[in-house]
């Protein structure tokens, strides 16, 4: 039997040391959860992608625009229910070139194509009533203090504004995403406004980078995608059509070895923290050697003396580890706000927490292993002879 009271007393005997060990565990487990959640966030777009959406883009490059004339041809393909242009605008807001993403879209079909973009203020009707109207994400609105009726000036990097001046868009609606796959910090504006303005300046249509489609219920995604690709096989621009998950996956793939780096860093953290805990437990063992000898002399079994060591290790690590997990869950909204548009899908999932709990248990066992075995095989004579 292991006396919990004894375990507690031992841990409290060196309050500072216990506190520091627990503290470093809190930090380490928090960091591990953070890293794991970042990896999860990278995949959010893939995991939460809608199954009934297809994306059509140029087979060559995301940066090659598709002709506007493609829209009618694609819409006529059997199984396509709605089609919407998405054109990247790349405007600069203030000094920050990467402030937020802006897309020119066919506003009239947005609600049917994107039910996850939930309008919480204003409405699509208001946007349709204003040529320069736009819809912005709630987190974008909060970050820059924007509200309905405000003007957003954007310096065009791809599409120069009229006479080199800034483009102006008016906030007519604010959305909140229904899940983490949708970036809460994006701006959507009317493609027809972009088209008119660019045509007036250059005589050419701005085109569209991608078409987002919604397929009819029961339609065969693969067949629809293949039919669209076949339409433009001989040019002028060849296209690939992919499910939304595949489309989002290409951005994850572009990150290259990032997930590997993250796990390498995580391994470094783990090694450092396991060593720290082993250190603490070895220190504790050295001090308690004499006590252990007395306990054994009094008739405590080898098992219960060893159990005492192991219980200390597990309690110490458990306390630190679980506090770290708790902290990472509590700080989830704060971290999401901090990471902002870079990682809209930041989420501390239950799997992450479970993983953290298992790691905590493993650290506790690893740190307690040597002291426990030594306490078990300790001979009373040697123990009593030892001094701290």
């Amino acid at each position: 039997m292991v006396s919990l009271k004894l375990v507690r007393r031992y841990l409290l005997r060196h309050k500072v040391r216990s506190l520091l060990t627990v503290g470093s565990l809190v930090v380490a487990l928090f960091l591990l959860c953070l890293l794991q959640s970042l990896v999860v966030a990278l995949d959010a777009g893939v995991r939460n992608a809608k199954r009934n959406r297809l994306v059509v883009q140029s087979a060559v490059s995301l940066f090659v625009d598709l002709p506007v004339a493609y829209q009618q041809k694609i819409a006529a393909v059997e199984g396509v229910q709605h089609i919407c242009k998405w054109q990247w605008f790349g405007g600069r807001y203030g000094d920050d070139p990467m402030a937020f993403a802006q897309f020119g879209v066919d506003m009239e079909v947005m609600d049917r194509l994107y039910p996850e973009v939930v309008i919480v203020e204003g409405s699509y009707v208001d946007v349709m009533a204003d040529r320069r109207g736009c819809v912005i994400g709630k987190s974008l609105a909060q970050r820059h203090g924007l509200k309905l009726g405000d003007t957003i000036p954007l310096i065009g990097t791809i599409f120069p504004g009229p006479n080199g001046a800034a483009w102006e868009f008016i906030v007519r609606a604010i959305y909140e995403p229904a899940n983490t796959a949708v970036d809460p910090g994006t701006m959507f504006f009317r493609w027809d406004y972009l088209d008119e303005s660019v045509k007036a300046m250059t005589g050419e249509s701005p085109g569209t980078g991608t078409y987002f489609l919604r397929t009819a219920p029961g339609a065969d995604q693969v067949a629809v995608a293949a039919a669209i690709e076949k339409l433009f096989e001989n040019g002028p621009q060849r296209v690939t059509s992919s499910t939304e998950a595949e489309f989002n996956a290409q951005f994850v793939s572009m990150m290259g070895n990032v997930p590997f780096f993250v796990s390498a860093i995580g391994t470094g953290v783990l090694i450092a923290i396991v060593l720290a805990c082993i250190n603490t437990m070895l220190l504790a063992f050295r001090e308690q050697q004499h006590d252990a000898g007395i306990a054994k002399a009094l008739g405590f079994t080898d098992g219960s003396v060893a159990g005492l060591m192991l219980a200390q290790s597990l309690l110490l690590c458990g306390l630190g580890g679980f506090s770290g997990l708790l902290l990472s869950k509590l700080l989830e909204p704060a971290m999401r706000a901090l990471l902002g548009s870079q990682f809209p899908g930041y989420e501390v999932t239950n799997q992450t927490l479970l993983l953290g709990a298992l790691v905590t248990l493993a650290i506790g066992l690893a740190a307690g292993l040597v002291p426990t075995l030594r306490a078990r095989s300790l001979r009373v004579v040697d123990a009593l002879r030892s001094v701290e």
Partner: protein
Amino acid sequence: MLVPLSYTLRSLFVRRSATLLTIVGVGATVAVLAGVLALRAGFTTLFAQNGREDVAVFLRDGATSEGESGLTRETCDRLIKTLPQIARGDGPEGAPLGAMECYLAVRRPKADGSGETNVPFRGIERASIALRGDEFRIAEGRSLEFGADEVIVGRKLKNRIADCQLGDVVQVNTVPFKVVGIFECDGPFESEIWGDFERISVALQRPVASRVVALLAPGATGDGFAAFATMLKEGADYKDLKVVVKTERAYLTDLTNAVGTVLLALSVGLSVIMGIAAVFTATNTMLSAVASRTHEIGILLSIGFRPLPVFLSFVLEALLLGLVGGVVGCLLALPINGIETGTTNWATFTEVAFAFRVTPGVMASALQFSLLLGLLGGAIPAWKAARLAPTVALRRR
């Protein structure tokens, strides 16, 4: 009088298991920091240090990267043919060393089958190669023939991206391009595919150039460059073109700022969080060092050592722990030096391959960090030791 250094060294040796665990713990922390810093060093040197001061990059006003920029053929012609600031080739009637280039991030499958990435595809003119001089070398095969559907591939892409070996065919839209050479060129170009501007424009059905690059004439470099840039932007002759000019170095530095900042923030954030854990560990080790040597400290104090030397002795011990940990960390990080990896530069949306670089600067930062960890970890225990009353300390076993 100071406490002898040998006392400090021997104390560390006597408690070798704790010393070792602390050193390796600090080492792991420092190694992670060094790794991230090496990543950043590799990335920024690839761009910034390889950009040339005597090469000018012309973009459309408002664009920060080639991907965003677009220049008409007339604009490019006027720039290249009329600007006296652009150097000319050898001979009395040498052509201007200026070229229009088009640039596109092209989707290509990775060679290892792990998905797709965006590879920079550059349409070049003869002057593009000429102005590089000796920096540009053909490593395998031959250079491309202008007018033919041929491309040359940067050395770093060869094994990373599918269909980039000599003799392979790269399909662009509906036109197949044959890989006829592998080239080497310092800087980010080694992650690019180059083909004839005219042929690529046809294949992509995009007759616009992304930028003009040109070798600057001697008078337009250095101090003369600012005047040139102002003239282009505000002078009556060229104002209507709405073109900005930067040196290549400035252009590349601007492109890497965003990623460089992210990596810097990452390394700072990680080092702070991991540093806290490492400081806690070091404090623990030093606290137990002080506790187990209380008796000795009593002796030191009673034979005439002042509290300050005792304090310094323990701080020194902690600093040594940190320093050795730092050295271990640097050694752990050294093997990654030179390993090539790739990530996407979001400013251009294309993948660049670069190598980790454990530079002396990276190691110096890592060692400073390890010393800081030691100092922070040792301060409180050392203070505790120095404040001990000799009589109380002596009474302890």
